[in-house]
């Protein structure tokens, strides 16, 4: 349910559509707006890179754009024929990509508020999608157990990686676009060379829990991974060692993303299946704040 933009000033806004900037080191978020409009559960929620807009998508096949400051609805994009699982902003905020159960990825022009491209190729539900930093490539993963790298301008797949043996739950580039991290329900986290498509590393926990989300740290030296044993781990992928574990929340069924906050103080944030949002201190692993207010499971259901 939570997805933070890389830029700082708007970070507070994203915590489940609520915010007041905190002044001290301790996070002190409070509810600012409640945005309602989706008719079915929301699966993905992301701020634009400059924080001016918020995009949400869900099982009702719609993408809604909201004003990032005032919370006003700006537009609704429709076109997908099945529910949407994930959305991603291009780094300049001009385009939005959406991954859907209709097996397509669609690219939307934010300026024209219209679809500009459909990427066909996945043979089953597309579950996750992300841009590279130059926004000329897109990486996607889905229930066909592949990771695909796309040339967006031409709408063609560049690489199809037979990445996992179960649905791919998250995939993203690192900060300079040379690496891709993917994770899947087979419990593996794999790191790939974006250019050659070679697998460079596989991380796996001893108990092999279903891995529901993975992303690189801002400097790409660590991988943050959520697993469905209600644990979030920070991995040093060079040494294949888990350097931090964050617990306290509940996550056994859904794929809930986890994020870094680096604006004022360094935190880890994630949703929980007990309708709350948890914020941990990056270093001490203590829960600093728990945000309540959502009804129903916080996080996005697997379609």
């Amino acid at each position, binding site marked *: 349910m939570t997805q933070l933009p890389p830029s700082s000033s708007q970070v507070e806004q994203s915590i489940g559509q609520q915010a007041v900037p905190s002044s001290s080191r301790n996070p002190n978020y409070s509810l600012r707006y409640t945005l309602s409009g989706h008719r079915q559960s929301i699966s993905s929620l992301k701020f634009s890179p400059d924080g001016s807009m918020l995009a949400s998508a869900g099982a009702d096949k719609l993408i809604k754009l909201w004003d990032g400051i005032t919370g006003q609805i700006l537009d609704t994009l429709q076109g997908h024929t099945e529910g949407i699982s994930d959305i991603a902003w291009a780094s300049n905020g001009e385009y939005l990509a959406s991954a859907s159960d209709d097996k397509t990825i669609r690219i939307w022009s934010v300026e024209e508020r219209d679809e500009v491209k459909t990427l066909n190729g996945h043979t089953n539900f597309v579950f996750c999608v992300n841009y590279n930093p130059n926004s000329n490539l897109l990486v996607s993963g889905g229930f066909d157990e592949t990771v695909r790298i796309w040339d967006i301008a031409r709408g063609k797949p560049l690489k199809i990686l037979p990445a996992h043996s179960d649905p791919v739950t998250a995939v993203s580039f690192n900060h300079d676009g040379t690496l891709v991290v993917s994770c899947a329900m087979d419990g593996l986290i794999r790191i790939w060379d974006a250019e050659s498509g070679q697998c460079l590393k596989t991380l796996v926990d001893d108990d092999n829990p279903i891995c529901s989300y993975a992303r690189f740290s801002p*400097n790409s030296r660590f991988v943050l991974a959520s697993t469905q044993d209600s644990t979030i781990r920070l991995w040093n992928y060079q040494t294949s060692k888990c350097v931090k574990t964050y617990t306290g929340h509940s996550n056994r069924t859904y794929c809930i993303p986890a994020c870094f906050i680096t604006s004022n103080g360094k935190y880890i944030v994630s949703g929980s299946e007990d309708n709350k949002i948890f914020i941990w201190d990056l270093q001490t692993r203590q829960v600093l704040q728990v945000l309540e207010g959502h009804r129903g499971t916080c996080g996005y259901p697997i379609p």
Partner: protein
Amino acid sequence: MNESLINPFTLSHPTAVQTSLFAGATFAKFDPTGRFIASAARLAFSVQIWDLETRAPIRWLDGHVKAITNIDWSRNSRYLLTSSRDWNAIIWDLSSPCDPPQRHGSLRFDAPVVSAYFHPKNSQIILALLATGEAYVCDLRKQNRSRIELLETITDEGIEEEENNGQGVMRSPMTVARFDPTGKNIFVGTASGSILVFNTRTKTMIARHKISGAGAMKGFDFAKSGRRLVSNSSDRTLRQFILPSYSNPPTDTELLEQSQPPFLDLELEPTHRFNDPINRTAWHAMCYSPDGDWLAGGAADPSGHKIYIWDISNDGQLASPLDGGREPLLHLHWHPTRSLLASTTNMGNILIWHHPNPERWGAFAGGFEEVDENVEYEEREDEFDIEDEEVQFQRKMKAEEEEVDIDTIVTGAQAAVLGGLGTLSGNMGGAATPIGTGPSGNYSMDIDKLGSGMGDDIEAAWAEEEPDTDIRGAWKMKVIMDSEEASEYY
């Protein structure tokens, strides 16, 4: 970032063709950020910009009406300078949102333009060489707007000789003109086999190097440090020189008038000569690798596509000849940071050479490491002891108290060292590179170390007056979607 996982310590030269681009090009050059290739089309007189990640053309620059002779990128790749036989040089701005991009500026000369280069520190200073053998420095900045011809200073003895001929002062036509990597000096090669060095700021000649036996100069390339120069000349030999340090002309105009500007007349002896002893083939192009350890030479062999790579750090030994098939080579260029070469064939194809990494299948299995040779495993004394889970958990929690650094960006080799040792934090601050600085040239050789004096600061300050708008990371090339019909075409 990926280097540390692939293979951090073996930097090698390209060995195999990775892709070929059907560009219809006469030559192709990587940009300084390493994301693009610009190629000059043979028939349309236009320039194509290729995205190296998608291997697809993303921009077409149309503006010349005759063959394009040279392409140069500004230092952060925002601007492109093309020179043509149609007597024009055109500056293009790739950040322009419209497609096709409009010209940002153009310069008109009185003869076909052989080459035009941006000053390495300011794209508003341009060095142009004309087919008539004259070189001009064009300054487009408002304060300094000028176009000054570079004139060879004829020494006294020279004048006497010329007077004996009764023809007055005769200057040998210039055939190559390049900025050095700092932009402080301009190196000009002449048809009579000399290298002339001009100061960029004052446009005065500060040195002349006679190269015996070279014949007409055909091309220059500098190692990144600017300390080494390789020349191509009509005697079918590539010569590498270690450049002496050049004095700076005085800054004060008065002083300049009073004193004779320091002048260096020195015959340079090459440290290495590279030629083909058997076929005596000439060279179309040569290029240093980014670290300066390798030199690639493209042979003007009509029967095949041959690239020779010499190992400069190993006394210039031939490392390997690369064979790119039957289409003869026209041009070659080394990627600014990686082990990639782009060579252009006479059929217009651009071959991209890389150094393939063997697939490591062990990477697919979690917790496995591939080792190069058998290692005798020594079991720890307590390895299979039954331990209380509580104690184990406590130990893990203890280990997790170590601080982690999630936002300091560490570049390739350093990351590998840090990762390999398994040190996690604490002392990291000193070794880390702040965001924004690129990979530093850790591998450069001793001779590349350049003593920077006071004078260099003056030259740099002069060049950076009225800075251009080509700022690192401050511009973006818009991703333009192909229309559906066009995408069918590829």
